[in-house]
């Protein structure tokens, strides 16, 4: 079999803002078809890591590779066709666009200088709206949406980029349980129908364990764990205690018999 390079690979990736080192020697490799949850304390470097992978931060040469190509050698538009990024909703300025127009912005890396949409673009945007389950919002203005709808509209924008990789920075953190489920279903649909690689930052240990195939844990800017969820579960709950510095215990749900982890009190 010919050797296929991992779809994303970091080799001894380090990153610092001014003097503060945020990422220290991170080496991970992610293959096509996988789904990953990125976990860790606040300030562990999760957002910085996915920003480095998305090409948003100036990384050293030969430290991040996409399909085997050094990310620093890719043109912005080339990169945008391979990787899409959904930032934390709170960091976005609200713009006076309709949902349809906003999602159309995701077509930018494929369009000409004046970014005039053609019929293909329209078809792809409609498909993105369907995948993110926001088809009925197309003509609404962004300013009129609820937080949960907004987050899925941002997801649709990223889907419209038709990239093989989707990086999400805490897509569910501010959502109610219903919208968390809707968000997860949209992500599942995108993964199942298009085989998109999904890498999500989450603070929800249970969703990390139950909904993703692989887990990447950061601690203080260093790689603490990277591997399959099965391996991770085998080390639960002690591995969680090491990551989050508080006790965790395992519990079983009464009716579904699902096993979950619950943070305990600090000693």
């Amino acid at each position, binding site marked *: 079999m010919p050797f296929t390079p991992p779809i994303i690979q970091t080799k001894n990736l380090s990153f610092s803002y001014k003097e503060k080192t945020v990422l220290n020697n991170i080496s991970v490799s992610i293959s096509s078809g996988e789904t990953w949850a990125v976990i860790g304390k606040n300030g562990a470097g999760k957002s910085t890591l996915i*920003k480095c992978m998305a090409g*948003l931060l100036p990384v050293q040469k030969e430290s991040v590779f996409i399909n085997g190509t050094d990310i620093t050698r890719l043109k912005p538009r080339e990169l945008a066709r391979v990787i899409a990024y959904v930032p934390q909703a709170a960091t*976005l*300025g609200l713009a*006076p666009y*309709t949902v349809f127009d906003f999602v159309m*912005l995701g077509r930018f890396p494929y369009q000409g*200088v004046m970014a005039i949409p053609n019929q293909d673009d329209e078809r792809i945007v409609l498909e993105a709206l369907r995948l993110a389950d926001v088809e009925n919002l197309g003509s609404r203005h962004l*300013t009129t949406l609820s937080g949960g709808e907004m987050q899925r509209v941002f997801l649709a924008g990223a889907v419209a980029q038709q990239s093989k990789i989707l990086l999400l920075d805490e897509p569910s953190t501010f959502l109610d349980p219903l919208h968390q489920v809707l968000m997860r279903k949209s992500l599942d649909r995108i993964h199942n129908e298009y085989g998109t690689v999904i890498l999500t930052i989450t603070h929800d240990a249970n969703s990390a364990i139950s909904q993703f195939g692989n887990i990447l844990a950061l601690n203080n800017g260093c790689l603490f764990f990277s591997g399959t969820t099965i391996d991770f579960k085998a080390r639960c709950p002690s591995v969680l205690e090491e990551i989050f510095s508080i006790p965790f215990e395992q519990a079983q749900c009464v009716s579904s018999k699902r096993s979950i982890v619950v943070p305990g009190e600090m000693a």
Partner: protein
Amino acid sequence: MISKSSLVQLSLLFAAAVLVIAIAPFIGMDIITPDKLFKDELQTTIFFSLRVPRVLAAFLAGSGLALCGMVFQAMFRNPLADPFTLGISSGASCGAAAIILSGINGAILGIPYISLGAFAGAALSMACVYALSSLRRASSGITMLLSGIAMSFLFSSILMFMQYVSSLRDSFHIVRWLMGGIEVIGYQQIFSMVPFLVCGIIILIFKLPELDHLLVGDDLAKSRGVRVSLTKNLLLLAATLIVGSIVAVCGPIGFVGLMTPHICRMFFKTRHTILGPATFLFGGIFLVLCDMLARVVIAPAEMPVGVITALLGGPFFLWLLFIKKARGIGLD
């Protein structure tokens, strides 16, 4: 695909612009009726060498300032940004005042020294702001806005100092220049503006789609393949060319650049590829009308157009905001 309704609205706006430009030269201290044109020699001269160039200058100034206001508001994601935010206005004023004080009169290629001073001042201010904010490598919009405001105060103080030490006559001259006015005589000044305007506007046109992305956020823009810092630098360069050349000829005309983009956003709640042309046309129409009033209200004397823009535009904007309850300024 661009929606049909936006195209219709744009065409209407274009028709309005043509109409206003065609009618405005007939109106002034005296009304020139079409039948007298070409028959009465004096009136023909007034029409073609005074009124027509003046209307054209007003249109270009209004559209350029409005366009730059729209660009700055999107780029800095700030509804209060305007063409003068980065200290361009006070820089230009300082340059003009320095020439007035030095007492040198004259022109190169028909461009008065005062205009050259203003252009140099505007460019200097812009360059300072740019240099300051690139010193701090993370050139965030806020850093740039704040350095612009700081430069603006600095230049204003220098201006006040110059006025303080100047004679009453020079001081009045400076104050009058600060009010802004389109006292264009003949076509020479328009020809001096046009190369800068055209260069600036061409750059802006090709960067209109990127503005949509910048308005949403730099990170998201970058992840979509927008070259964020290159785009911002090009936009700044374009704005400097446009605003510098306008201020040099017409002085710092306020309000147009700050408010007309908001008025257009109320009607064209859409992407910048439509909003841009709309703002260009509307800004031009607005300033031509204001200048027309400036020539008429206290005829045979003239008002500085800067007085009219805010006097007329302020209540109009408030009416839109509070009575018509126009929604979707979109930047709040």
